[in-house]
């Protein structure tokens, strides 16, 4: 076996609340420490005394280690905030790890976004050259691949038109075409790249697959379980910055869909909460429409999520928003009090319970996750918990079948079927 990427105990620390806590003297101290090759004092403090720095830092990755062999296609999956994009950024050299190291063998190219550096005023042809140079190709290489790129992008007739005149579909096709024709030994791809219409998406994924069959190594970061299942032999599941699972794709995907935590109540401890810390989220519980915690709510019933939190300073005009996803990360609902024109009563200093009542939920039996955020009317975050509140909807006989589950989809809809005579047929 030939290891081409070796990630060794990589951790990544992010200081939050940068604006209010950044002082010249702390900067100077950090700089001085870095000059003497000593650990960052802010990082050291957060390890020694995490309580004193509550809400001011986050470990986006913690002791992550894995190897990738040559020719492997490895998927990296996980929910929002699990550390997927951080590991991508480190591998693609956009940022450096806080601890640990990554060893790489061979030329590495990363596609975190298509069309990086595209200039709207330049023509398609000019942008092909510019973009491929940014991605690390020489002009000679680009010239050799030019026809292939053009062919893949299907924009021949507009190649000498400024890209600002392109339709968004053309723009994306051209951008992806450039990226797809890189020749690196290791390719790191963010799955959101597979864009455009369905036919082109298929072409993109096919291209990624081709790269893999040529013996090159691919790291695919994805939300899309279908794509991961199709392409990757192996998957790494990240959870809260740590590797939760690393193994054959099917096994990891199962684990992802059915995590072991089954409780209807939970705590926010150690979860990545963003925001300025004005509101501290403590814990939550979920009740059904009779106010019972131990009985699952059903489709078409009300669910209430009780969030216990601490308000550090009176907030006169709070606003709240929620998002609800499936366990696979598909967003089902997203709404906020601002859009609905609802004014909330001021939050007083101290601990309080905030209730979110979801009326007559249309969701079919299964697990769901809720995002919750508190902002001021301008959208500044006091607290924001993505993907952390979990609730389950129980099975009920909504479609007249007793065992309605995820195979019936996620959302219940009342549908009527009927036959009617074909009037146009009678005219003939």
């Amino acid at each position: 076996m030939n290891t081409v990427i070796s990630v060794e105990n990589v951790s990544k620390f992010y200081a939050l609340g940068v604006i209010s806590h950044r002082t010249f003297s702390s900067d100077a101290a950090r700089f001085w420490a870095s000059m003497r090759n000593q650990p960052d004092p802010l990082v050291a403090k957060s390890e020694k005394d995490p309580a004193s720095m509550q809400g001011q830092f986050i470990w986006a990755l913690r002791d992550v280690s894995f190897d990738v062999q040559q020719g492997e296609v490895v998927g990296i999956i996980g929910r929002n905030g699990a550390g997927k994009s951080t590991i991508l950024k480190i591998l693609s050299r956009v940022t450096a790890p806080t601890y640990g190291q990554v060893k790489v063998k061979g030329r590495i190219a990363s596609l975190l976004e298509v069309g990086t550096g595209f200039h709207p005023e330049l023509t398609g042809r000019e942008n092909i050259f510019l973009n491929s140079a940014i991605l690390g190709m020489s002009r000679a290489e680009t010239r050799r691949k030019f026809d292939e790129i053009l062919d893949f992008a299907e924009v021949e007739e507009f190649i000498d038109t400024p890209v600002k005149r392109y339709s968004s579909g053309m723009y994306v096709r051209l951008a992806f075409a450039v990226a797809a024709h890189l020749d690196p030994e290791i390719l790191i791809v963010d799955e959101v790249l597979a864009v455009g219409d369905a036919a082109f998406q298929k072409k993109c994924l096919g291209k990624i697959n081709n790269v893999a069959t040529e013996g090159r190594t691919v790291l695919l970061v994805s939300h899309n379980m279908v794509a991961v299942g199709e392409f990757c032999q192996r998957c790494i599941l990240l959870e809260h910055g740590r590797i939760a699972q690393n193994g054959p794709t099917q096994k990891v995907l199962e684990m992802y869909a059915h995590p072991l935590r089954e409780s209807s109540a939970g705590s926010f401890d150690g979860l990545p909460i963003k925001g300025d810390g004005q509101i501290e989220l403590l814990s939550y519980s979920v009740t059904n429409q009779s106010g019972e915690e131990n009985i699952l709510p059903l489709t078409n019933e009300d669910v209430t999520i009780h969030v216990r939190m601490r308000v550090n300073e009176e907030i006169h005009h709070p606003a709240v928003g929620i998002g609800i996803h499936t366990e696979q990360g598909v967003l089902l609902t997203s709404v906020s009090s601002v859009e609905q024109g609802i004014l909330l009563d001021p939050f007083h200093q101290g601990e309080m319970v905030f209730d979110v009542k979801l009326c007559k939920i249309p969701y079919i039996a299964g697990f769901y996750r809720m995002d919750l955020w508190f902002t001021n009317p301008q959208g500044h975050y006091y607290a924001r918990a993505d993907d952390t509140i979990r609730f389950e909807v129980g099975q009920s006989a909504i479609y007249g079948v007793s065992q309605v589950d995820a195979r019936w989809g996620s959302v219940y809809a009342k549908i009527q079927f009927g036959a009617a005579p074909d009037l146009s047929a009678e005219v003939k």
Partner: protein
Amino acid sequence: MQQPQWTMILRPRKAWYEINLRELWDYRDLIVLFVWRDFVSYYKQTVLGPVWFLIQPVLTTLTYVVIFGNIAHLSTNNVPQFLFYLAGTVLWGYFSSCLTKTATTFIGNAPIFGKVYFPRLTAPISVLISNLITFGIQFALFVVGVIYYSQVNAYVRPNWFILLTPLLLLIMAGQGLGLGIIISSLTTAYRDLQMIVIFGVQLLMYATPVIYPLSSVPEQYRWLLALNPITPLMETFRYAFLGQGELSLGMMIYSIIFTIVVVMAGVLMFNQVENNFMDRV
């Protein structure tokens, strides 16, 4: 077990001397394309096209002629006012655009830097080169002016010192780059510097003999201008092309040493900041 040969090891910190010039060279095509992008996109969809590169300095020069020449009556050492101010505008323009544009390297390029890696120094270096092209166009206009006036005005006497022009430009580019990337490295943490640069450069122009000759400065303020490393460049340039200006070997050596120090400091600082500035921008 085979001993793998790693091509790259990503660590939390780079040693201060770890500057990968080899890699920068590998990306030379990117520098060329950046230069060409800046040049082309500057005048695309304009009627006059590259003529804009000339209109700017000419209008600035005319303004100076009116304000500093005809209203304030500043001395130009008998050199025709238009030519004197054009020399100042064109050369100062090169320095100030090198400085202000490299000073926004990290913040201005954050969208690209955040998505893909390439040696970050390609960005400021391409700025120097594309400014050099702009300068070249404006310089051609200036040379035409020098040729014309040297025929009709006895005070305008170009001489062999014009051969020093490339050296003057190199020193100037170095100063612009060095100061620019130092500021750019610091602005990732302190945005205030961005504001300071914009009017700081304007103020600095008045502390440099751009719109007045060094010889017209009263003796007791001379030392202040002598501290300014751009002063000898400006004076030598004017001496070479106009025959009016003060040559000083001592000040020139000071300017060169200043440049070397500032470029080295800038590159070392830039090299450290590029490691993880994305976490802060």
